[in-house]
Structure formats: C-alpha cells, structure tokens
C-alpha cells in the first residue's frame, strides 16, 4: 500500500511570522500521511523561536517528524528546542530512527553536516579543526547506518538538513558545496538502503536528484519549492 510523504525545510520562523505557515497546513491530512520538516526551523536558534515552531505544527492530524538545521544550533539552545518540539507532540530525529504509521514507515536521520563530495571533499588530516569538521560528518553517517539498520518497515525515508548529493545543490555556487553537504551521508544510506532522502539547506539549489546508488533525493528548502510543502507518493504502482 502506498504512503504519501509531505516534506518541507528551511521555514526559518521568527516572531514576525507567527501563524503564517500554519495557514498552509490546513487540509494536509487529505494530501499526506506524514509531514517531514528538514531543519532550519528557526532563524536564530533561540528557544522562543523554537516555541513558535512547536505552536505552528502542534495538533496536526498527521504525525510530524523534524530534524534541526544549522540555524537551530546558532544560540546553543538545540536541546531545549528539541525538548519543546517533543513536548508539543512532534517527533525529532537526532541521528536516530522512528517507526510510524503502524510500522509501515521508518524515518531515520538528523541534521547531517558538510565536507564536500567524492573527489573534492575535505579529509580527516592536518589541523585538529579540520579533522574535527570531517569527523563530525563521519560520525553522523555511522549513526545513520545504525539507525537505518534498526528499521524493519515497508518503506524507509531519510530526513536530513544537509545534502547527501551535489545534484540537488545545482544553482548554488560550487565553491560552497563543502558547506552544504557530504557524500558520506549518501554513502551510508546507499549501503543500508532507503526509498527516499529528504533534505534542505540549499536555498538556491534544485528539487530533484539521486544518490550514486539510485536512491531519489529531494531538496525541499522552501525557496526551492516555492510552495508550502512537496508531496511524494511512495510505491508508484498504487499512487
């Protein structure tokens, strides 16, 4: 049986926009079975902004799964933001996995991180700062493998903020690709298998791409979509 996944990222809510996004979510239960929100929920990563995000998505008739983005880390309040989102009924992935829809859908993921893409990426070599940067992504990718392995569901979707592939960055300056994603994320998902990878972060990028292993990737950053959310139906034979 098919599953319809709604997805958006980079909504960047602040007090001036309270209530503005919620209006677009009316009737979502007729379009989708689940809503995935791929990070950069806030502008400055403050707890107050986190509370606005929690209010905006609270009480929806479909489950809502979040990951945080780099903006949500800016004020060192990421754990508090995660807590308010969970208190409001949201599911927050932090390099973890959740099973939804009576065991039919597994969602794994987290923020992700950068480093660049195969052949043109940073290495765990040299100064401690460089090594720490690359190690952060490597450790995230390792945790995603574990998270994906834990899922025994009909469909598996990965939710990230940073991109696993270059294709969905098309439109961004190539010089900043290493700050927009890493091939290590795609490599991990290709090894474990998934039906779809959702990400955001690249506002000037492109919606559609694919991993080297053939898994569909969708950049759902709001400025890329220019619509409230995208909807993807898994299992085209029944869609």
């Amino acid at each position, binding site marked *: 049986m098919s599953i*319809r996944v*709604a997805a958006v990222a980079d*909504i*960047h809510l602040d007090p*001036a*926009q309270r209530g503005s*996004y919620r209006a*677009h979510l009316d009737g*979502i239960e007729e*379009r989708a079975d689940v809503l995935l929100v791929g990070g950069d929920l806030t*502008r*400055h990563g403050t707890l107050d902004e986190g509370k606005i995000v929690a209010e905006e998505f609270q009480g929806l008739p479909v489950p809502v799964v979040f990951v945080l983005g780099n*903006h949500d880390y*800016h004020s060192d309040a990421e754990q508090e933001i995660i807590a308010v989102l969970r208190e409001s009924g949201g599911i927050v992935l932090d390099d973890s996995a959740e099973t939804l829809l009576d065991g039919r859908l597994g969602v794994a993921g987290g923020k992700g991180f950068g480093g660049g893409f195969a052949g043109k990426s940073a290495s765990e070599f040299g100064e401690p700062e460089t090594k720490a940067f690359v190690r952060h992504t490597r450790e995230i990718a390792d945790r995603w493998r574990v998270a994906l392995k834990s899922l025994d569901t009909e469909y598996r979707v990965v939710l990230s903020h940073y991109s696993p592939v270059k294709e969905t960055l098309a439109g961004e300056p190539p010089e900043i690709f290493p700050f927009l994603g890493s091939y290590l994320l795609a490599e991990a998902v290709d090894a474990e298998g998934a*039906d*779809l990878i959702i990400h955001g972060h690249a*506002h*000037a990028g492109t919606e559609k791409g694919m991993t080297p292993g053939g898994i*569909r990737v969708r950049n759902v950053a*709001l*400025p890329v979509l*220019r*619509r*409230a*959310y*995208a*909807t*993807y*139906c*898994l*299992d*085209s034979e029944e*869609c």
Partner: protein
Amino acid sequence: MDTPHYVAARVQQAIAEDGRTNELGIRVDVRGDQLFLRGQVSGEDQLHLLTDVAREAAPGLTVHNEVTCVEVRDPGEEEHL
C-alpha cells in the same frame, strides 16, 4: 577607498553574522560606489533589515536591494516515486 572585492566580502559576512539578519545566501556585488544585494528572504521585515545591515557595513555606498521575498504557494501536485 577599500578594494570592492573586500567590501563585498565584508558586507556578505555582516549579513550572515548580524543577529538582525543571519541570512547566509545573499549575494553581494560592488561596482564603483554602488552596492547590489541579490537573493531571497522569507519576509518583508527581513528585506528591509538587509538594507540596514549593508549600509552600516559599507558606509558611503549606495545600496540597491534587489532581494525578493519567497512567495509560498499551495502544495500543488504530488510526485509519484
């Protein structure tokens, strides 16, 4: 007078790091005494704050704010995967 290249870099950095804006995807170009901002933001307030931050970071230049607001439309059609 500062080299335009470095002025543009300074303004871009200010727009990314200033708490009023924190916008990472704004392109900044300087031509003579004219400064151009391009990109997209989510709201009108953000649009005006970009001009303020750019003016403060590059006093003496005329700021042309060509940034647009993202218009959020209805969800539209679903894609079958």
